[in-house]
């Protein structure tokens, strides 16, 4: 998974990630387009609204799959540590933002951004953790 590894599990992770991100972009464009032009209602509206969330959730499953397939236990450990930092970071940011929203009426943070915040923390923590073991 990390940029210094070229093992099969890491390559599969990168390939799956790219495909899923492409699916996310396509599903998001599709949902936006349908909502703009056809104004769906009822069950269809719910399904279309949820559609882009499916590949985003899939990214987490792909990361889980990477951890299951990675044979290098050290790389696996780095992946797990990075995920824990990301979960903690996302919870901390959204928690702090939530209180700021409640008390000082800061702009509402759309929960869609939780996934973005999580992956930003993954991107930051991974090279930081690898530096420790260089």
């Amino acid at each position, binding site marked *: 998974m990390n940029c*210094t*590894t070229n*093992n099969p599990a890491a390559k599969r992770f990168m390939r799956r990630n790219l495909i899923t991100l492409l699916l996310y972009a396509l599903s998001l464009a599709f949902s936006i387009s349908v909502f703009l032009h056809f104004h769906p209602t009822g069950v269809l509206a719910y399904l279309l609204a949820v559609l882009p969330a499916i590949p985003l959730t899939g990214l987490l499953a792909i990361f889980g799959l990477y951890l299951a397939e990675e*044979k*290098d*236990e*050290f*790389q696996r*450990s780095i992946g797990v540590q990075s995920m824990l930092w990301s979960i903690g970071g996302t919870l901390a940011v959204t928690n702090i933002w939530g209180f700021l929203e409640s008390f000082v009426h800061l702009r509402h943070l759309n929960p869609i951004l939780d996934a973005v915040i999580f992956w930003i923390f993954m991107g930051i923590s991974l090279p930081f953790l*690898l530096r*420790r*073991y*260089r």
Partner: protein
Amino acid sequence: MKNRLRVLRAERDWSQADLAQRLEVSRQSVNAVETGKFDPSLPLAFKLARLFETTIEEIFSDEN
């Protein structure tokens, strides 16, 4: 945990990358184990012992 990996490698004139290749792990993994920053699992410790034709106790020792 202390280990003699650096010495054992040097005796065979292996780089960290050479050892990593033989263990089928990344060079960073070898470095992390060698510098004592990462304790290997029992399967990896046994693999190291087999590779260096010695026992786990000969490679790793408790710091206490």
